[in-house]
């Protein structure tokens, strides 16, 4: 267990000496994951709400698939995005492979189903209470959707955080499409994986501690936002 002691020492010295490299990696991790979660929320929240609201043939199957896609394996997503963005692939000309943009794209695929599936559940629970009232007031489906997203904002934030958790923690997809290139696409998780493969477990753990601290900071920021949102009454 000396490693764990060493790990904390490593973590503290990493943060204490906060070298530019670490700062760069932390920043890129945040940029990629926050970016991916932002895009995934814009897609996933309305998508989940729509599946919750509308009744159409095959809806049950869509719910099943959405729930299943919460378990989309990062490596597989990474591979598919790689094949699309590769020079040999259909979007190769864009030259996005091994860039942060590619990492965001891959993570969007991972995170969107999580946010959508969890949002569906939240909105469906609310819909059973709201449906008749909103329809009676004359809400179109689009307006009903907006009202539900707003009224469910506090609970939906947890869904978004779950998506962020997946994004910030995952390594498989960003490793493949980012390539873990130093100073270009190296993020916390790929840096950790690198140290593990080098066998420097203490440094890997130290980076891990920094990453968890980062997650806690984000989660605390969201808690503040949650407090504000809970109080926000008017639109």
């Amino acid at each position, binding site marked *: 267990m000396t490693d764990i002691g060493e790990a904390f020492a490593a973590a503290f010295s990493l943060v204490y000496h906060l070298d530019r490299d670490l700062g760069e990696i932390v920043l890129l991790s945040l940029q990629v994951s926050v970016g991916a979660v932002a895009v995934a929320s814009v897609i996933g929240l309305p998508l989940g709400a729509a599946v919750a609201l509308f009744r159409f043939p095959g809806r049950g199957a869509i719910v099943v698939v959405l729930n299943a896609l919460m378990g989309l394996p990062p490596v597989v997503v990474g591979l598919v995005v790689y094949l699309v963005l590769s020079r040999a692939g259909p979007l190769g000309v864009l030259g996005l492979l091994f860039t942060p943009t590619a990492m965001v794209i891959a993570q969007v695929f991972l995170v969107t189903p999580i946010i959508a599936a969890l949002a569906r559940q939240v909105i469906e629970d609310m819909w059973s209470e709201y449906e*008749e009232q909103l*329809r*009676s*007031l*004359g809400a179109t489906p689009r*307006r009903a959707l907006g009202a539900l997203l707003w009224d469910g904002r506090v609970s939906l934030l947890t869904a978004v955080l779950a998506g962020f958790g997946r994004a910030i923690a995952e390594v498989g997809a960003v490793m493949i499409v980012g390539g873990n290139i130093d100073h270009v696409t190296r993020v916390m998780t790929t840096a950790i994986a690198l140290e593990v493969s080098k066998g420097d477990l203490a440094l890997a753990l130290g980076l891990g501690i920094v990453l968890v601290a980062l997650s806690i900071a984000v989660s605390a920021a969201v808690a503040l936002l949650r407090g504000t949102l809970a109080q926000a*009454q*008017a639109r």
Partner: protein
Amino acid sequence: MTTPSILPLELRAVSFERDRQRLLKSLSVRIAEGPRTIIIGPNGAGKSLLLRLCHGLIAPSEGEVLWHGAQGRDPLRFQAMVMQRPVMLRRSVAANIDFALSLHRIPRPQRRRLIAEALERTGLGAFARVPARVLSFGEQQRLALARTWALRPQVLFLDEPTANLDPAATHVIEDAILAMAREGTKIIMTTHDLGQARRLADEVMFLHRGRLLEHAEAAAFFAGPENELARAFLRGELLWWERRELTPPGTRV
């Protein structure tokens, strides 16, 4: 309202079924423009189901709900309803009304006036910026009324709208309902307060176990209904859907 009315409303052999239970049984009725229609009947008779069905919130399992005056327009847009347990959005009192108005595409400057007016009429002026969900239930019921009135519907469904109101508020709401009816709004309402039913009804529908047993002029109905169960109901002797001899109220303290 100069737009033509969506009325009359006709139910043709309408039934409503859930979990293999017929909750409304082959109702046929024509509800015309003009008279205030009051629906009465014991708990669980199906009054709320009937209102929701007419309002289009639930679909009949059999039969048809027809708005003969709709002429291709969406009838729901000309109706409003105060539910038995109104749902408040997680917003301020004013924002709840604002939301309803915005759904009807009323421009923002106009909305402010309508909101102030509706709050004034229901005595909620002081609560404009309070979260709607912390209101007392009587206040919530008043907010639901305010929210609906602001929409100025052609047809207004009211499901026991004064159940939680204090006597003076009940009085004022009854007055407001009468005023709206005078201005041409069709009132279709349920109540358990027989005094209120007498005060407000032009015509009465008596519902029992999902069946429409009587549909009559108010005066005639309260003078003495044709249906035996309706008579028992008026005398307070229809308990759990069954006729019972009960000690008359007042004799027991």
